[in-house]
């Protein structure tokens, strides 16, 4: 194995910083699960003004099907505490992200309905144990683009860098293997609702399914398209790697109909526009962040109390797409916002790197480590993208399955919803598939069209 000069220099630097992190790490392990921090690093206590409650791990959700699926809305009967529009948003300046403010300013009839906050996200004991252990065993590169040593739980419950936070998002616990059927929509600049994809998906995480052994992959997804009509029969397989330098880049294979063979897709990532979504978002904006961290510097700005989308069971799982998505924005009467503490990460493009955006800002929920809000700024520093993460908490398995997103393309005046569940199946837990079902060759062999 060749070791470049750069790696050697890094190595020297790392050994110093490793010593420092070890000290922090031991400290961390002691704090987690204590009286100040939750086992995954959130602050236990509520906020000073009471808008954020204390962490409530003993919350029990209503009865839901044993295998999951469409979750009942645990807060269906609640009414908003207050409403924010462009007119009164100045009152809430400090509690709104730039991206949310931009939407309020853009449309006079856009509203942010703020409800009672519920901090109910909890995880299984073994995830919490693994998280504590990760504090002492995780290693990352200088720029945080690769991860080593973490197993089974959150790698950075007490993050030091912005990249740490994004890895927590990447490795959030989505629960046991699941299938989901969901649809994505583009609402174009004239307000037309267009189906972009309707697919049946299987997702699992070797990282979480094998918490005792280091793994190469942290997500595997096999998707079979059932809509729109021209995509019926298409299939894709995705593997995401923890350590790009050691185990290669993320891979995506496409199945070719009529030939019944598969091909590795070229590395579309970063700022390649999603062609099946009118270019409303980039590949690295899928789920608000996906892909490799090597082009940006991720700065951990700090923590904020912010009004963020949260507990959006109603929008995602109990509203039809026609009800949920209006001509310009998602229906504010069906969208739920709450006040929570979030980590703020600002990513700036590294000098010499190429990307259509100069800056990305992520707002990550402290309890679930899911990105709940995101903004993208163009090369001139102007806001071009504002997105909302509509994650749902599965209280049966104590997990947060993959994050549906509503993302606004402020340049073209269009927006997308990527994983609408109503009419689909929700997240249904299944027995984990054997590896033999998840190879590109078996995707070809079981191709029907």
């Amino acid at each position, binding site marked *: 194995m060749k070791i470049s000069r750069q790696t050697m220099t890094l190595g020297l630097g790392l050994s110093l910083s490793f010593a420092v992190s070890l000290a922090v790490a031991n400290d961390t392990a002691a704090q987690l699960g204590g009286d100040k921090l939750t086992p995954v690093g959130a602050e236990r206590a509520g906020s000073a003004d009471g808008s954020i409650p204390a962490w409530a791990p003993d919350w029990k959700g209503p009865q839901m099907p044993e295998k999951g699926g469409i979750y009942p809305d645990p807060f269906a009967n609640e009414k908003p505490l207050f409403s924010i529009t462009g007119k009164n948003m100045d009152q809430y300046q400090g509690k709104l992200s730039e991206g949310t403010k931009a939407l309020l300013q853009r449309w006079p009839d856009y509203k942010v309905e703020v409800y009672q906050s519920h901090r109910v996200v909890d995880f299984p004991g073994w995830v919490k144990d693994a998280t504590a252990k990760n504090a002492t065993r995780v290693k990352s590169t200088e720029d945080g683009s690769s991860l080593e040593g973490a197993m089974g739980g959150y790698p950075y419950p007490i993050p030091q860098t912005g990249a740490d936070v994004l890895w927590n998002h990447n490795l959030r616990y989505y629960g046991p293997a699941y299938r989901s059927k969901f649809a994505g929509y583009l609402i174009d600049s004239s307000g037309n609702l267009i189906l972009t994809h309707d697919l049946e998906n299987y997702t699992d995480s070797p990282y979480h399914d094998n918490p005792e052994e280091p793994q190469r992959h942290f997500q595997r997804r096999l998707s079979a398209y059932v809509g729109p*009509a021209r995509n019926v029969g298409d299939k894709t397989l995705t593997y995401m790697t923890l350590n790009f330098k050691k185990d290669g880049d993320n891979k995506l294979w496409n199945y070719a109909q009529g030939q019944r063979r598969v091909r*590795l897709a070229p590395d579309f990532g970063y700022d390649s526009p999603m062609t099946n979504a009118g270019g409303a978002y980039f590949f690295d904006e899928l789920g608000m962040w996906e892909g490799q961290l090597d082009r940006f510097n991720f700065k951990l700005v700090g923590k904020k109390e912010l009004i963020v989308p949260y507990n959006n069971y109603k929008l995602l799982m109990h509203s039809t797409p026609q009800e949920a998505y209006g001509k310009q924005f998602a229906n504010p009467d069906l969208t739920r916002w709450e006040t929570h503490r979030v980590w703020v990460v600002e990513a700036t493009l590294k000098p010499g790197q190429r990307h259509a955006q100069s800056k990305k800002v992520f707002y990550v929920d402290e309890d679930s480590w899911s990105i709940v809000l995101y903004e993208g700024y163009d090369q001139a520093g102007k806001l071009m993208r504002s997105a909302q993460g509509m994650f749902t908490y599965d209280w049966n398995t104590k997990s947060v399955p993959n994050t549906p997103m509503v993302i606004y393309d402020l340049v073209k005046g269009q927006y997308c919803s990527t994983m609408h569940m109503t009419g689909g199946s929700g997240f249904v837990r299944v027995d984990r598939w054997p590896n033999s079902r998840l190879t590109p060759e078996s995707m070809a062999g079981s191709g029907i069209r």
Partner: protein
Amino acid sequence: MQIKRKAATGSAFLAPVVLLGALSAPSAQALTVETGNPDLRINWTTDFRVGFGWRAENINSALGDDPTSHQSDYSAHSGEMWKRRLDVLTEVDLIYKEDYGLRVSATGWYDNAYDDHDLKGNPNLAGISSRADGKLSRQAQRYYNGPSGELLDAFVFGRVELGEIPVTFKAGQHSLIWGVSQVNASDSVSWSQQPANFQKGAESPGASPKELAMPLPQLSFQSQLSDRVSLAGYYHLDWKPNRQSEGGTFLGGPDFLYDDDGRIYSGTVPGLGDLYIEQGDIVDPKHKQRGNYGLQLSLTPEWYDGSIGLVYRRMDEMQPWPVNFEVDPTSITGLRFRQVYNRGVDLFGVFTNFNWQDISWGSELSYRRGTALDSTGGPLANGGLDGATGNTFHFLLNGQAQLPNLPLYDTGIAVAEFSYTYLDKVTHNEEVFAKCSDARDGAGCGTRDASSLSLILMPSWLQVLPGIDLEGNLTLAGYGLHGNSAIPTGPAERAFAWSVGVTADIDMRYKIGLLYSDASDVDPRIGAMGSTDRGRVTLTFQTTL
């Protein structure tokens, strides 16, 4: 007697170009039938495609004055329509518990431009016809004019566990294309794996790969032997030839091919009149139910970030020697000609697919034993009907990449493919091997080696108007870099086919495409990659009704 042109070999490239059809597939109306049973799913989709074609280039006298190609060339004048065609593809999948079920698909068509079955022709060559009845061949009448249709896929599929090893299988009519080739099928491990629909590939932009790789009755399986090793195989239960552009149609090559009752004009003798070499029965594999099978081993080793495939195939070829002469004492000309399909070829191949520098690379290397080579047509002294055969090496290298970031477009894909053909040895009928003295010689001859380059650029402009995406397409197919391929299809030096066009994708449901296509070649050879004077414009609507 030598036929002056390689019979429409260019189409071997044009059709495989549409191997990429998946990237611009027809739009369709889908129906997911509610069965009430969560284990049972039925998908039913129907594509509609309406295409209009106009000729944009004048008749070239070298082709139009030739008594063996004037009837195709005169089927439309510049400015006239040569196509008014409706294509329908309907598909039904019945899937039980993910792994079991059946699939049936069928296609239908009608082209109003071919309603008149009388062949056109050069007025100066009146009376000279490659078809005795002066009408389109039965093949042309069915596949061009219609209305007609055919069954495509018709198979059952399932999954069994052999011990710990899962095996998926398909039984019935379906198609499989192995290897990684993107454009060039002649040099691929997938050569003659499925009959290719060159007719649709040449004249129907937007045709799906599901129509272009025509299904055959076969048994196929795939099994994951371990996490890193997979085995796949197939056994054909029938053999069918490639479907060609028919003589007398706008994109036809020689007028006398490919149905079985064309004849070759060979001169006018005062007193005897026009003389023709008649066609005898087509020589194709005697035992179509056996002799065509293949096995593929796929490996994804720990030390390699891509996959490696090892292939062995035994095949009867699906592209004929178009004109092999035999002595016919009953004919004034003393000759008869036959279309002959070569049988019993062994193919050993290896291919790989991997990502490097953000590009998806594919490469193949194959060796064919006893493969058909360019032949003069003979006749052979020993009276045999086959052409020359021999052993050849084939190499492909292709890449798929994102177009570089330029303000000219929003995003896009580029595909490039390089091919290399090497003739190792002529093993049979060397006296009829058509060896070129110069690569620019008349078509149908082969040099020791040959190479080609194909390039496809597909830029996209997203949401140029609300709901409308535009996709451009610039294709250069099979440009012959050097040499002439020693096999009957494949590149010829400085010959190529090309097309440029744009498609509007409306609401992700409807497509309207405009395309200009043509072929080019060096003088005096015309048409190694398709007749060079058929520059044409096609307008295609793909829609849901």
